[in-house]
């Protein structure tokens, strides 16, 4: 560290601004607050990545939801929970993961569309996800009767999954193998060809 400096270094300006935000700050907002050039900002972020590396610090620099965010190192979370006397939020249910997957990969889509894809009414799950700020109404489907709201994932969702953007998820087709899909079709083909008048046992 060089001696007495009066003018703060770029990394100092950036870390100070990051301290006062609980949500990710994008590069352009960081630049306009700090007055740094693009190059200086890049340099500052490189310094800070090292300073707030998960191996070396209890505070980590995360690049999520299109911006930069300081947060506690997960290795320290038991201490945080003791300090706040708060239990870690309960993990989401399987149904909640499915609803989020619908919104992420098929969204924005209406409540009805989510329920149709999943085959069960999903309103309660959707409601609790909105409550947790992971889903949000992003508009309305004006072509449908009653213009139902369209649901999409939030920046909090991106931050919670450690994603910098929606593109940061694997394409859905890479998650399911062709063999699996073929098996579904096969099984289906064999089951529907059997009794011609059994048709009502859908559920």
């Amino acid at each position, binding site marked *: 560290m060089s001696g007495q400096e009066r003018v703060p270094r770029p990394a100092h300006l950036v870390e100070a601004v990051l301290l*006062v*935000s*609980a*949500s990710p700050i994008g590069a352009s907002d960081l630049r306009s607050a700090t007055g740094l050039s693009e190059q200086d900002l890049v340099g500052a972020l490189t310094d800070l990545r090292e300073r707030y590396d998960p191996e070396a610090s209890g505070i*980590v620099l995360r690049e999520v939801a299109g911006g930069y*965010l*300081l*947060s*506690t190192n*997960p*290795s320290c*979370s038991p201490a*945080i929970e003791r300090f706040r006397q708060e239990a*870690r939020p*309960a*993990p*989401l*249910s*399987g*149904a*909640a*993961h*499915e609803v*989020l*997957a*619908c919104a*992420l*990969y*098929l969204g924005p889509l*209406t409540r*009805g569309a989510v329920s*149709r*894809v*999943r*085959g*069960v*009414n999903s*309103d*309660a*799950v959707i*409601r*609790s996800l909105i*409550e947790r700020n992971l889903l949000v109404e992003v508009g309305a489907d004006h072509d449908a009767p*009653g213009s*139902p709201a369209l649901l999409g994932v939030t920046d909090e969702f991106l931050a*919670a*999954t450690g*994603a910098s953007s929606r593109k940061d*998820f694997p394409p*859905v087709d890479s*998650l399911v193998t062709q063999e699996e*899909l073929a098996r*579904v*079709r096969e099984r*289906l*083909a064999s089951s*529907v060809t059997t009794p011609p008048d059994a*048709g*009502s046992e*859908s559920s």
Partner: protein
Amino acid sequence: MTFEPLGRSLSDFTVELDVYSGPYEWLLALILKDELEIFEVPLRELVESYLLARHPDAANALERDTDFAGSAAALILLKSRTLSPAIDADTEGIEDEPLSPEELAERLTEYLKVRRAAEHLKDRLAQNVGHYVSAHTIAPRQGSLGIEPDRVSLAARQAFSRLIEPPVRHLGPITVTLQELAGIILTAIAGGAISYESLTSDMDRLNRAVAFAAALSLAQDGSLTLTQAEPLGPLTLEPAR
């Protein structure tokens, strides 16, 4: 959502399920807070683990059975409500018309993708848990927030017209115990097999649910045999052979 408050008699009853392990009371709380999906909770396993943990000779055995039957009945109601078709306008689109095999395949394929994506998300969320953000935030400048009055009105309409059911309260306090119903059931099957439908035809919904719990309990200890020829088909209670 409302629930008759549980007596504390079950405070030491813990359950081990795939979706949850811990105190039973907390399980109820999680379900009521929508943090756990009721249809993910295997009620049969729940009843079985209660029966395993049951101490018929304990001083508060009766109270425990009553509390358990009461809450289990409420869970059954909740579950059936969740699984039954939605009635609100938004989801009325879930059609009943039979699908062509192609459409069915299309839907299942789509659901399979959602399922896999959900598993991926689960892992990702788990890997990123435990990041707490700074508390050193600064308040935004006064007057920089705009709120749409229409959204406030819409929110009022939503909040005030929402049905916070399923109300369990209207079922009234529990007026029957597992033991009493067990007695009724044993008397009824003394003359031979009887269907659950006819056994409970004169009962109200709560008694029906408790009768179900009682029948399970009796089946568990070998006092009767429960048979169901096909899924969702009629349930028959027979004297144990």
